[in-house]
């Protein structure tokens, strides 16, 4: 711990010395009398405020939380010697908000542990470390204080709050493993697809006796098999628009976490590509473990500004399996992301672009001189969307105020009317 002395002690010392000198010089007792209480205060400051022996134990009521949840941090503080005043400061990242003052002051009786409770509100997702607590123990009059820190840091993970989704974007192509997705191909399954004439090797149970009786030859039912799909979440982290504490990247992470959970529930394999200043990826896997792995990568994702030219070629080949559905969550702000997405489509991937709209956050006030530039920017974005749509890629805009289900329904409608090649 480090000892600090108040500026008042230096001032009182100077005043005392000045009074004594003035008394000597003037030959009067009044300056000495004036100096006496200040010198007494200096003596008191030296006698008070021994080095405390404070120990702190930090504890969280839980290690994981959702956005908007409240977390209780308990700090158990104890000291061998009595401490007149103990001030505790819990330093917090801006994503966590504390109810009331972040500094608590209490008296510590000797050998009696005291518990201080901090209630935090998790305003934004992320992985955090809380602690150590900053400690300050001034004496009774605030002349001298000891400052230090205590309590081992505690890990806290705040998961993004997920959206409610009833339906998902169906991939155009499925994989060979069993899943919940009705495949477009024909084979063994539940969903009826078509009738065809019997061929040697067809099982008897597949014969449609009614159709066979009508046509006087054997006809069999064909079904669509249930298969799983490979879904790649492409998270664009080159740039974001931030306004009022919310950003396009925050929303993209929320959407990615929601989509990952829902697709994994359907037994699809889900992978993740964080494409930006720092590159991150997860190979497609299935199961709960993959969900936590994806969320962990999402919690660490952040906007990293970079001038490096990046394209599909920097990604490991296994992160983008053939016939995968690529769901791109992007604000469409960086040309590198746009070029990469066009490149992915050019390589035959089933691409869906969910534009996390930056328009509302960047909109100027009416009458602002930037209004013209804003309109031009919107036009250029429209041109970009048109470019995607021309090659059969649905581009849907998601605003924070709207549910995520709305743009996904829009994708389904687009695919219904404009089936890509």
């Amino acid at each position, binding site marked *: 711990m480090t000892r600090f002395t108040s500026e008042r002690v230096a001032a009182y010392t100077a005043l005392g010395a000045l009074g004594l000198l*003035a008394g000597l010089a003037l030959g009067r007792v009044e300056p000495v009398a004036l100096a006496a209480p200040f010198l007494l205060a200096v003596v008191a400051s*030296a006698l008070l405020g021994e080095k405390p022996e404070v120990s702190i134990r930090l504890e969280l009521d839980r290690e994981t939380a959702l956005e908007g949840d409240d977390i209780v941090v308990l700090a158990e503080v104890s000291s061998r010697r009595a401490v007149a005043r103990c001030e505790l400061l819990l330093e917090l990242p801006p994503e966590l908000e504390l109810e009331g003052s972040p500094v608590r002051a209490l008296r510590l009786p000797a050998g009696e542990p005291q518990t201080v409770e901090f209630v935090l509100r998790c305003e934004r997702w992320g992985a955090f470390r809380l602690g150590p607590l900053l400690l300050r123990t001034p004496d009774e009059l605030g002349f001298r204080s000891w400052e230090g820190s205590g309590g081992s840091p505690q890990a806290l993970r705040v998961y993004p709050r997920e959206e409610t989704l009833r339906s998902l974007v169906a991939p155009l192509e499925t994989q060979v493993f069993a899943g919940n997705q009705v495949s477009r191909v024909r084979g063994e399954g539940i969903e009826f697809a078509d009738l065809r004439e019997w061929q040697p090797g067809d099982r008897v149970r597949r014969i449609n006796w009614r159709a066979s009786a009508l046509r006087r030859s054997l006809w069999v039912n064909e079904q669509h098999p249930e298969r799983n799909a490979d879904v790649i979440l492409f998270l664009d982290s080159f740039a974001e628009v931030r306004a009022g504490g919310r950003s396009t990247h925050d929303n993209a992470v929320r959407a990615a976490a929601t989509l990952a959970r829902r697709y994994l529930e359907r037994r699809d394999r889900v992978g993740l590509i964080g494409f930006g200043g720092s590159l991150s990826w997860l190979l497609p896997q299935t199961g709960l473990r993959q969900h936590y792995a994806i969320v962990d990568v999402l919690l660490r994702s952040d906007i990293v500004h970079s001038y490096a030219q990046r394209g599909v070629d920097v990604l490991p080949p296994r992160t983008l399996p053939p016939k995968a559905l690529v769901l791109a969550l992007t604000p469409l702000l960086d040309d590198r992301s746009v070029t990469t997405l066009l490149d992915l489509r050019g390589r035959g991937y089933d691409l869906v672009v969910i534009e996390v709209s930056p328009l509302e956050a960047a909109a100027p006030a009416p009458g602002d001189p930037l209004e013209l530039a804003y309109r031009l920017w919107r036009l250029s974005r429209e041109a970009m969307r048109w470019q995607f749509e021309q090659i059969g890629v649905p581009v849907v805009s998601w605003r924070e105020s709207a549910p995520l289900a709305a743009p996904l329904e829009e994708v389904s409608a687009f695919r219904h009317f404009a089936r890509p090649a």
Partner: protein
Amino acid sequence: MAYGGAIAVALVRARFDRWLLVPGAAAGGLLLLAALVTGKRLLGVALALGGATFVAGAAGSGRSVDATAPLVAVLLLLCGELAGWSFDARLRIRADPGLGWRRAAATALLALVGLGVATLVVALSAAPPGHGLAWTAIGAAAAVAVAALGVTLARR
């Protein structure tokens, strides 16, 4: 209020000499400036100026010893302590209610002991100088005690 009291005592003693009004007002202004803008930095200067105003007034009054000096000294000390407390209270701290009372009690105790010490200083000044072995011994012992105290405090 404490500072106003100290300056008022000084001005009353000097019968509102206009030359003392200037440093008195300047000291008050400095204290106000310290309280509102600069924080603790100008506090010492304001207290020194207030003390100087009183000493000048006392010297100008023609009396050999001004008996109100201990009172003014304690008022100035209280002024410094309360100003320091108010500076500390500017930080948004959620404190146990008992802590405020403890600091108030400690401040009052310091002021009372300070008043006693200042009174003792003024009373001792009435002792006849250079008369008697006892006073000389007490003076020497006091000087040694002060030196020892200074060394002890410096080593802490």
